[in-house]
């Protein structure tokens, strides 16, 4: 190799190293704004940035929204930043109550109870949305009672139905099935007309679980659900066996879309949006999703049909959508809280609802939503109550898996209930 080549190689190496080290001088992370928010809602970034600009013009406080998605990466970033004590001013650990409790107990999240009471801030929200961010006295995670997050929006899960396909099957598109037997009849008529009656992302365990839980509330009521959680009522109780039987009935009457047990919600949404299925169990975000997939889709929204024999009202999965937490040790804690207060006021929430088609957490604003979203917002009051206890993830997982097993005919409702109960007993034993 010639001397020139060696000279050039050494120089290239040196230049590259210089480039790396000079261009990126080591330093501590310094925020470039008064309030930094880490969030995962990529589809809302543009709307958030516009609001941040507006807030800067009004108050001189600079707010920076930084997006990190998908959610599992976001969660990783939050947990890493928490360990290094580098959390931003506003964030969300994106976990269940148990996980949020661990952040609160580690002093990462500020208690907002006092701020929420000032000027009756808390009164502008849907109570369900606030309840999910509230820790009650005597909660099982030993968190100091109080409100710990500001809800941005709310959601609930209902059944969308395609009015054109209903008409095609000889059903009245303006009269949706209200009871379980009516639902079964509608399903049979749709199938007879060669239309796939029902679709949902039941391959994602939480959706099948959410559908089943509606009937748990319907059959057991609040106290009953709590007793099941506490292990005082077993999953082999005839009412829980009945819940498993509902899925068997749907299977026997050919209501399910083919492959529903392995179907992810994105595929279920596509099936409904393209008119391949007549009904879809999905969240309020579906309004936005279906609009983007097929703006001409003619649909209505109905609550899951109740059981005529049930003694309690049928409730739906939902309540809090996205919430934001304030970093307890942030130097800009007050500025962060003031911004969140501003963000949840009527004008900003109206803007967010219009731009993102989500149901705002501010209940006054939710009255002026488009028709389909309004149905969802009116039903927020019918979402599950927040309980002081949650089911262990292992048992929840068993419920979802066994519901899927019933759909594919692998288990009978009774044996599925016994399987879940066996897991519940294992978990209770382990807990003791």
């Amino acid at each position, binding site marked *: *190799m010639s001397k020139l080549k060696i000279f050039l190689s050494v120089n290239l190496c040196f230049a590259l190293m210089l480039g*790396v080290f000079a261009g990126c001088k080591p330093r501590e992370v310094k925020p470039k704004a008064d309030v930094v928010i880490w969030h995962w809602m*990529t589809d809302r970034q543009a709307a958030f940035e516009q609001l941040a600009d507006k807030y800067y013009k009004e108050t001189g406080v600079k707010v920076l929204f930084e997006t990190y998605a998908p959610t599992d990466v976001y969660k990783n970033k939050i947990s*890493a930043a928490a360990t290094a004590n580098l959390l931003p001013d506003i964030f969300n650990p994106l976990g269940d109550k148990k996980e949020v409790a661990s952040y609160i107990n580690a002093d990462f999240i500020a208690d907002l109870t006092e701020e929420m009471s000032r000027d009756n801030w808390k009164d502008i929200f849907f109570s369900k949305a606030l309840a999910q961010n509230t820790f009650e006295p005597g909660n099982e995670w030993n968190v100091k009672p109080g409100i710990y997050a500001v809800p941005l929006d709310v959601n609930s899960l209902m059944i969308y139905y395609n009015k054109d396909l209903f008409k095609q099957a000889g059903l009245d598109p303006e009269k949706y099935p209200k009871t379980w037997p009516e639902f079964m009849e509608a399903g049979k008529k749709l199938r007879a007309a060669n239309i796939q009656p029902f679709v949902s992302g039941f391959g994602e365990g939480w959706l099948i679980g959410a559908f089943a839980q509606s009937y748990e509330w319907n059959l057991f009521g609040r106290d009953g659900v709590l007793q099941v959680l506490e292990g005082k009522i077993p999953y082999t109780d005839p009412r829980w066996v009945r819940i498993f039987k509902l899925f068997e009935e749907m299977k026997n009457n050919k209501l399910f879309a083919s492959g529903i047990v392995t179907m992810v919600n994105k595929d279920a949404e596509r099936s409904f949006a393209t008119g391949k299925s007549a009904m879809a169990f999905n969240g309020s975000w579906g309004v936005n999703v279906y609009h983007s997939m097929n703006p001409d889709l003619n649909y209505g929204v109905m609550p899951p049909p109740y059981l005529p024999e049930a003694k309690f009202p049928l409730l739906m999965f939902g309540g809090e959508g996205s919430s934001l937490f304030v970093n307890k040790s942030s130097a800009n804690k007050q500025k962060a809280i003031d911004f969140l207060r501003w963000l949840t006021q009527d004008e900003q929430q109206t803007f967010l609802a219009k731009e993102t088609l989500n149901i705002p957490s501010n209940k006054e604003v939710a009255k002026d939503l488009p028709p389909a979203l309004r149905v969802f917002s009116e039903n927020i009051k019918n979402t599950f109550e927040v309980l002081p206890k949650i089911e262990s993830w292992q048992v929840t997982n068993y419920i979802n898996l066994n519901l899927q097993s019933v759909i594919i005919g692998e288990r009978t409702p009774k044996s599925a209930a016994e399987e879940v109960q066996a897991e519940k007993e294992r978990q209770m034993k382990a807990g003791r």
Partner: protein
Amino acid sequence: MNIFKIKKILTSTVTHTILIAVALTCVFPVFWMISSSLKTQSQIFSSMSLLPGPLLDILNWNWSNYITAFVKADFGQYFFNSVFYTVVGVFFIILISSLAAYAFSRLEFRGKNFLFYLLIATLLIPIPGVFVPLYLLLKNLSLLDTRTGLLLCYISNGLAFAIFLLKGFFDELPREIEEAALIDGASRFGIYWRIALPLAKPAIATLVIMNSLTIWNEFLLALVVLQDKAKMPIQRGLMVFQGTYITDYPLLMAGLTIATIPIVIVYLLMQKHIVKGIAAGALKG
């Protein structure tokens, strides 16, 4: 026609049919990506057609998706960042790994095997598993949210496999050539630089392609280590089109097509070396 000719034709037909089928399965996703990048959102869900529209109407396909994707995702800045991370990262991976591999192959020192297997064992550690310790380490080194911090992660991530591959390659080189060079007065470094490294060109080409692909497509580390949008790689741009509930498929596919072009060019430039490199290094190693 004799039996040998028939056998030859049959073997050739079967081989080519299988190869064409495999090639089609590889090419189809790329074709689908390009085709989808020229459709509208509702077309993607309503039409299963492979073409975005009639061929005669090619000028009216949604070519503007590319401009929208480029502008909306701020690809200009991200593109530069990704080129920088890839070029510098790959350069240092090759430089450090070739030196280390040569040392593991030719030099005798205490604990050589232990160190080598320790290094190889790091291949078993998944990246998400080290997020928290890595984050803490970078924080303590004041390298969080810096290009240097991210580059060091990329380099260390690529070293183990590169050393493994190159060591296998160097082990296969005849020692006689080096001994002749030693007799002629060449130093150890001289032998590495003038003889071993040029002979390892196929393995190096393989490593350049593999590491370029890895760094170009990397996303998780960048998102955890960096905060400043201006330092993010091109994959961050693609995130803009994937909402929590809605994905803008035409723009995402247009963005993906843009992001794929440089890596396809690298592959085409280096492809003649890749088979030779893997065969000579990894398999024998």
